[in-house]
């Protein structure tokens, strides 16, 4: 067992300690969680170094179960893909842990919070390193329940419970697809080991399976199943509804969900299975369409949100949509790159927002703001951040997208979507950050700068920008580094080059930025601002295109209604009544039987028999008893009496009488003597009887034996 097994094991150990630790370690919970994740992070970096030097590391762990053909061995497979994600997961988790140790101070459920965070980290690290699809699925679900527990952290709020349930259930629906995919994969490949599956994928290509009357190509169906899972965890339209509500969680949790765990799982899974995905072109088209719609939709909704956390949520939805989109067009390393860059930046954005919101004491922006003197550095950092993601995310790897034009029409569509999304992202990011930190000074809000000082924020901002720049510089290296772990359709020669078309993306970003700035300076001057259809569209997007209501209307309420109908009308009314009816029918039958058969037939028969018997008996009595038996008895009696008298006379009674009298005297003499030892109570009598019985049985047993 390799030391790298500790990467997931340490957070797991932290979880176990915290979960079982009792109330004593409540306040010191971060002292368990932070070091565990820190060491994990260190080991992740070490793993990165080792993988870069020696290639993939396989760490077999233990046999989970074996039943028939199904053998599941839990193991880790740290390849180039996993090792790039591990530092992101553990790193962001570490920062979030440190941040939370201050942010959550005084929370009554401090220990629970850190326990679940550690479990969350464990699940994600095992997910990215798992070498078995079933283990991947298990971690997948485990993250679902972790998000449930964290979203419902402030359990006293009704909205938190609803949001948590919603998040889990949306994911559960999506995960039916993934679970089905796991079973289908086993049915197709006879194994769940990811590397074995990927090795066999090409051989299976073209085989189809019958499902509900349709013949579907196996790899296509598997890929669609994977997409279904990814749509849930990564909040793709129409499964995105849970993510905005997940803001009910404490802010550090949002950072963790958006940057390190959970939402990253979707693109990761598609990249992990990329050789298989590439064999299913129809499914890839679906993936690209889902991604594109989500990217555009998320950006448009983000534009209309006035709550900064909701804005960030939709921004995540949009960005992840972009990654899925990239997977759909086969640009897997671009997706990984985007994932890394987005992870680091979103983590920072959430933490700084949390800090700022805590300072401002309010959610949302526009209404109240922080005094300018305090926020100017913050605003500066934020401005940097709004421009940095645009540069990092849209100039580097995405030049691939601009040239990904196997089908011209699709290429043009993707082009439009991509440019529009870039424009909108620049727009909303600038607008959101500026109006939160901008100079419109609120009047009476007392600032409470207690969590992170602005120096900290600035430092983290600089660090993130540095990471971003590093990544940008690393792009040429990343493409070749990832190549062994990732299937690629576009020639690897393209990796790491910059296409001049990237300038279009930069132009779109700058355009979005300027429009937002103009709108910020003069709100009335926003182009199209006053048109009727713009207003209408604004309202629609403000309400997120009514997806929540749609889900409620199409899925939640009908299933509840059907359930209630099934219960009240079918189960209680029909099945139960059928049983009761059977009982009633049998009872009626029994009663009529009673009336018909028993009273009229059997009773009469019995009565008749009785009458006949009585008559018979009487005549018998008369005939037999009186005439025959009586006379015989009389005769016998007369004979006996005669015989007795004769005996009395024959035997000399006096001698016998004398002997008896002598015996009587003897007894009278012995009796008093015996009375002394005679038992007096009933119990003693019984005891003696029992002794006798036992002795008799024992003796007879002995005799029969002999």
């Amino acid at each position, binding site marked *: 067992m390799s030391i790298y097994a500790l990467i997931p094991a340490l957070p797991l150990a932290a979880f176990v300690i915290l979960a079982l630790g009792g109330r004593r370690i409540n306040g010191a919970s971060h002292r368990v969680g932070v070091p565990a994740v820190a060491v994990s992070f260190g080991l992740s970096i070490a793993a990165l170094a080792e993988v870069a030097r020696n290639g993939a590391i396989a760490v077999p762990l233990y046999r989970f179960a074996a039943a028939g053909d199904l053998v599941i061995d839990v193991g880790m497979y740290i390849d180039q893909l996993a090792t790039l994600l591990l530092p992101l997961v553990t790193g962001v988790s570490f920062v979030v842990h440190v941040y939370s140790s201050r942010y959550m101070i005084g929370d009554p459920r401090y220990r629970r919070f850190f326990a679940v965070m550690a479990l969350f980290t464990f699940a994600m690290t095992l997910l990215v390193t798992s070498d078995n699809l079933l283990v991947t699925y298990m971690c997948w679900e485990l993250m679902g329940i972790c998000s449930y527990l964290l979203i419902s952290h402030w359990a006293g709020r009704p909205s938190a419970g609803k949001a948590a*349930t919603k998040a889990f259930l949306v994911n559960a629906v999506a995960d039916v697809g993934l679970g089905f995919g796991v079973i289908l994969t086993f049915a197709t490949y006879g194994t769940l080991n990811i590397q074995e599956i990927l090795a066999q994928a090409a051989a299976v290509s073209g085989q189809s399976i019958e499902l509900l009357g349709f013949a579907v190509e196996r790899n296509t169906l598997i890929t669609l199943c994977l997409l279904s899972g990814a749509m849930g965890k990564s909040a793709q339209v129409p499964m995105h509804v849970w993510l905005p509500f997940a803001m009910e969680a404490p802010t550090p949790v949002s950072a963790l969900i958006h940057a390190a765990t959970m939402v990253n799982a979707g693109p990761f899974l598609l990249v992990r299975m990329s050789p298989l995905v590439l064999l299913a072109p129809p499914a890839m088209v679906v993936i690209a369409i889902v991604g594109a719609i989500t990217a555009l939709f998320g950006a448009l909704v983000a534009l209309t949100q006035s709550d900064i956390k909701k804005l960030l949520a939709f921004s995540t939805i949009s960005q992840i949509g972009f990654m899925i989109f990239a997977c759909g067009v086969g640009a897997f390393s671009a997706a990984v790159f985007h994932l890394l860059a987005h992870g680091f930046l979103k983590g920072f954005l959430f933490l700084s927002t949390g800090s700022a919101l805590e300072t401002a004491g309010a959610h949302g922006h526009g209404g109240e703001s922080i005094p300018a003197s305090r926020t100017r550095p913050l605003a500066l950092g934020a401005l940097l951040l709004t421009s940095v993601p645009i540069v990092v995310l849209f100039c580097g790897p995405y030049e691939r997208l601009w040239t990904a034009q196997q089908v011209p029409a699709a290429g043009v569509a993707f082009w439009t979507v991509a440019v529009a999304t870039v424009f909108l992202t620049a727009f909303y990011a600038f607008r959101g950050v500026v109006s939160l930190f901008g100079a419109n000074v609120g009047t009476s809000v007392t600032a409470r700068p207690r969590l992170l000082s602005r120096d900290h924020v600035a430092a983290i901002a600089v660090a993130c920008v540095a990471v971003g720049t590093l990544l940008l510089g690393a792009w040429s290296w990343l493409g070749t580094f990832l190549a062994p772990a990732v299937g690629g359709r576009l020639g690897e020669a393209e990796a790491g080059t910059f296409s001049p078309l990237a300038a279009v993306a930069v132009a779109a970003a700058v355009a979005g930025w300027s429009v937002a700035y103009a709108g910020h300076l003069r709100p009335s001057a926003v182009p199209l601002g006053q048109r009727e259809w713009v207003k209408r569209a604004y309202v629609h997007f403000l309400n997120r295109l009514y997806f929540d209501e749609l889900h409620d209307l199409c899925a939640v309420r009908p299933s509840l209604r059907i359930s209630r109908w099934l219960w009240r009308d079918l189960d209680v009314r029909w099945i139960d009544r059928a049983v009761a009816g059977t009982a009633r029918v049998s009872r009626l039958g029994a009663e009529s039987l009673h009336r018909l058969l028993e009273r009229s037939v059997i009773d009469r028969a019995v009565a008749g028999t009785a009458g006949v018997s009585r008559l018979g008996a009487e005549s018998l009595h008369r005939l037999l008893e009186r005439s025959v038996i009586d006379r015989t008895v009389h005769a016998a009696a007369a004979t006996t009496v005669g015989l007795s008298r004769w005996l009395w006379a024959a035997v000399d009674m006096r001698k016998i009488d004398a002997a008896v009298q002598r015996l009587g005297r003897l007894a009278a003499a012995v009796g008093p003597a015996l009375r002394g030892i005679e038992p007096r109570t009933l119990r003693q009598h019984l005891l003696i009887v029992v002794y006798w019985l036992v002795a008799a049985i024992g003796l007879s047993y002995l005799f029969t034996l002999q």
Partner: protein
Amino acid sequence: MMPLLNDHLISLLIAVPFLGIAAILLVRGDEWARRIALLSSLAGLGLSVTLWRAFDPALPGMQFVERADWMPTFNIAYAVGVDGISVLLVLLTTLLTPLCVLASWQAITTKVKAFMSLLLLVEGAMIVVFTALDLFLFFMLWEVTMIPMYFMIVLWGGPNRIVAGLKFVLYSLAGSLLLLAGILGLYLNAGQTFDLQAMAGSQIALEAQQWIFAALVLGFAIKLPMVPFHSWLPDAHSEAPTAGSVILAGVLLKMGGYGFLRICVPVLPEASVEFSPYILWMSVAAILYGGCLALAQSDLKKLVAYSSISHMGFVTLGIFAFNQEGVQGAVLQMFNHGITTGALFLAVGLLYDRTHCRMISDYGGLHKPMPRFVVFLAIFSIASFGLPGTANFVGEFLVLVGTSYASMAMVLLAMGGIVLAAAYMLWMLQRVMLGPTSDRWALLRDLTTREILTLAPLAIIVFAAGVYPAPLVELLANSVGELIASATALATGG
């Protein structure tokens, strides 16, 4: 001593509860009755763990077989023995009984001696059912389980107990009658023997098999219960006292599944194969139907009861998929369902003892007054819908893999049942434990040490068997493999 113990381990295991009953009837005072019941059920647990450890999963066939003539004229014998399946179910029975005793420690205040005796009587009878190798013995003790259950429901049950008890008995009797008919049919067709092992080799004509199978399936289906024969269950479960619900849901239902495995599949393989598509579809229907009904419930105990119907659908689904994965999954599902649903009933019972409210809508915000209770309730709820990492996931997953050999559409539909399960459980959790705490519950007492001792072992098992199920899976591997191999050989060769 040790050889004697090993030769008569099962008889000893059977004798312990009955000795416990005798001791309870001899002593005076309720406190002693409780203590003796606990002691005797713990002794049973110890013996069954010994059995589990001593059982060698690598050996074929039955182990620890004991045989003595009983009514030689009819070839009836006292014959007991175990394979992996029996060991697991005996383990489940003996595990839940001490917890039931603990759960009734304060909840049962009237006629304690009678209650404890009945509890032990059910335990003893169920152990015999799970170990019997003689069909007559099996049937007799099958019947015996019904009587104490009836009295537990009727004497210590909820407000609607009389109706529930009557329903339970009538259903059970109808099932038993069919079962008896089937067993007599077997006796006559399989060479006038009640010996299960001898029966498994006898080749019964297909037509006879079909009739006998129909009778047996109806008998078992009522006990399990399968969907349209389930309507006794919600009433019986929700009206029974906590221990009764735990025994009913935890172990008694498994007798139906065990009957399928022990009698239908090995003795009537051809009929089983022939009828399997219908039973598979009925199982899928049961999973979805039970899930829907659970979603509609507003009564906490009824919700758990209906969820049982849904979960037992997985058992029949796995058994009649006729392959190693499916059957192993089904047996695991029986065990896991026993643990989690038993635990859920225990938890709900603890809550009911405090509040005397059964409606979900009465609750809310329990996380504040009862943090420990909420942890346990959440653990068992999420285990109940088969979250990976808990034991139930392993069983359900194996069943689904087994089903995938039969039909992918069924797999998809059955997974819909899992979503339903997640929906009703989480919705229940949300309404019971989350949200603002009303003043009415602000002063509820959290779990006591005794109550934690009742729930913690089950929570540990749920996680241990979910993370490392290999020991349990291996325990079953050979027994199930043998069962499947001989049945398929008979079905295809005969």
